[in-house]
């Protein structure tokens, strides 16, 4: 009622029409936009970080399988993970009395060693990668070619062992380094050889 009175009071002429005040049809949308983007940010952030990523890992079918790898190794390294994030390695077969050496998990330790020993494969895969980019090679073909390179007889073979004091992260770190340095042939072996145990004890008491 108050509005009606106010409208009438302002008039002067006789032919005065009662006009509704022209209200803008526009609504201030800023808060709406704020809210929408807040929700959007929330859902984007929760959605993309949800799906976990996985690393493929194959284990040998039985103990004999691991031994098979051992016997044919031409260019082999055995890594032994131990407690307190310690890692040791030796090259070649156990019958040749290899020397156990400590090495770090960092890029200048394990990765450097693997890259040196697997240099041939790494350079071939690099060349293949360049060729694949030029010729627009299919992804599956590329992967097949990579596997072919990785399994050639002189490629590096790695045995991953542990002395039951290692933690899960150590093993995953090693496998990850192997993936980075394109080592295709590696086996996670459960049991330590008695000779290896001896070497491990020696190096721990007398580093």
């Amino acid at each position, binding site marked *: 009622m108050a509005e009606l009175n106010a409208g009438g009071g302002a008039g002067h002429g006789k032919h005065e029409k009662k006009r509704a005040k022209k209200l803008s049809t*526009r609504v*201030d*949308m*800023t808060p*709406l*936009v704020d809210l*929408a*983007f807040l*929700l*959007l940010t929330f*859902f*984007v952030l*929760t*959605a993309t970080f*949800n*799906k*976990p*990523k*996985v*690393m*493929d*890992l*194959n*284990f*040998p*079918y039985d103990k004999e399988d691991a031994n098979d790898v051992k016997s044919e190794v031409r260019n082999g390294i055995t890594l032994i*993970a131990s407690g307190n994030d310690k890692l040791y390695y030796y090259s070649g077969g156990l019958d040749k009395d290899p020397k156990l050496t400590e090495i770090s998990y960092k*890029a200048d330790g394990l*990765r450097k060693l693997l*890259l040196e020993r697997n240099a041939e494969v*790494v350079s071939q895969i690099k060349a293949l990668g360049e060729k694949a980019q030029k010729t627009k090679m299919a992804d599956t073909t590329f992967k097949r070619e990579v596997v072919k390179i990785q399994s050639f007889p002189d490629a590096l073979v790695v045995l991953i062992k*542990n002395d*039951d*004091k*290692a*933690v*899960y*992260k*150590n*093993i*995953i*770190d090693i*496998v*990850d380094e192997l*993936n*980075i*340095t394109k080592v295709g042939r590696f086996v996670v072996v*459960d049991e330590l050889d008695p000779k290896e145990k001896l070497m491990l004890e020696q190096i721990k008491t007398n580093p």
Partner: protein
Amino acid sequence: MPKIKMPRSSPSLDMTPMVDLAFLLVTFFMLTASFRQVEPVVIEAPSSIAEDLLPENVVQVTIDKDGRAFFGMSGFEVRKNTLRQIAEEFSLKLDEDHYQKFAGMNMFGVDTRQLPQYLMLSESERENLGTKGIPYDSTNNQLKTWIDLGRREAAKEYQRLKEEAKERNRPFKDDGLRYAIKADGKAPYDKVKAVIQIFKDLNIYRFNMITNVEEEPKI
């Protein structure tokens, strides 16, 4: 020098298209989002350069930093059917309520004999209940039973879906069951090894290790 006259225009602009777009995106993300369920333990997985996504159809064993094991698998119906088999195996008395609760749970880690009581607890009560995980030592290897029965049920469901797709002449997404292991970085490796040995005893040798993402370094 004449002054440059700026054209007079209102500083407020029409935000309608922007709002339209924003709400469209909100709707999209809301519908596609699947909310992560409360997990009974916090796992800090180690990181790797792996970029493969976790497959849809998995049996997952989770190992926390104390070496406790948790079991989970995908599929509402599959979980229900697995529990049916488990109830028979361990002669548990379960009713429909138990099955419903279990089907909605993505992971659990209690002794199978305590499972009926555990299912009836509320979420906060479950959190406060310190669990010992599913036993998996050689004398009481319940985890092995869970994995074995779980994969059988998953295989049945897979077969059923395949036949159903064939009947209706629909394409069938052929991804078989995979086995995922999610372990805390600090979990003792001999515990992880024991779990892997269980899989090996069931003739499963291929795993998907769940890891966090890390950038691949240049070599």
